[in-house]
């Protein structure tokens, strides 16, 4: 092998040279380069919000997807709270409604017996317009 003819060096001397190169201060970055690299890193870092689509894809509620679109569409969380309060009030009104809360005419109608109801219908017919 022709390469073997050149293999007459002292391996220790070459190792010394390698060690000297490892300690060469010129192979150390200066502060200006460190600052430039850090500036790039900060400028190019994705914002924390950019990870939301990953959570949405994983099915985590509140981070995205249809639920988030719905909340957004109705005007955000304040609107959702208002919608919930209105729904609760309606349910309560249904449970606890009494005759005192109803208009007089409707309350009277609900309290009549069968005869009164028929009489009421007969009277109503008196006011129907005649056929032309």
């Amino acid at each position, binding site marked *: 092998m022709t390469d073997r003819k050149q293999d007459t060096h002292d391996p220790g001397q070459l190792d010394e*040279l390698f060690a*000297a190169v490892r300690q060469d201060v010129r192979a150390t970055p200066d502060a200006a380069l460190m600052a430039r690299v850090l500036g790039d*890193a900060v400028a190019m870092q*994705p914002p924390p919000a950019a990870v939301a689509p990953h959570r949405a894809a994983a099915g985590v509620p509140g981070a995205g997807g249809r639920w988030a679109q719905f909340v957004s569409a109705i005007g955000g969380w304040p609107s959702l709270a208002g919608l919930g309060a209105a729904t609760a009030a309606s349910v309560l009104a249904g449970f606890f409604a009494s005759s005192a809360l109803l208009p007089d005419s409707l309350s009277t109608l609900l309290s009549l017996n069968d005869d009164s109801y028929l009489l009421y219908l007969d009277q109503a017919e008196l006011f129907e317009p005649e056929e032309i």
Partner: protein
Amino acid sequence: MPYDAQGDITDEALLLRYANGDPAAPAALTRRLTPRVFGHAYRLLGDRAEAEDVTQEALMRLWKIAPEWRRGEARVTTWLYRVVANLCTDRVRRRRAVALEAVEEPADDTASMAQRLQDRARVEALGAALATLSARQREAVVLRHIEGLGNPEIAEIMQISVEAVESLTARGKRALAGALAGRREELGYNDD
């Protein structure tokens, strides 16, 4: 305490934190990776200005790819060494010759002037000898004997077999020895 001071977080974990918007990650990654990237680029190119450009470009590519980084596929440093080698190869092709510029060296009070001059002469000599190697031999020798990596990782970086790495480094060392053969006295190896 900063991440890099603890040393218990892998480069990959830190990169994932960077991609997730952790505000402490950019500084930690910069402190941890820039010296390695710059040192390697400088040893391949022998020129600080060009090594700085390569360092900034290689790390910008890392910042860019961070959100799509595939966990466990490759070590961050392995990926970076590969990118640095490609960028350096492009530059060497463009200028056709490696220039070893003399850069002002910071004062070192612990070493004597004579010792510093000799160390510098040795570094210059090895730099010049490295420049005579082929790009692949130089990359393999620098990764093995200066960066201190193992042959399997070098094989992964250079995308060749471990046997090919062994062959490249062996031939590279022989070529270095040949290039330095006439400079033993100049480099202070005849002192007894």
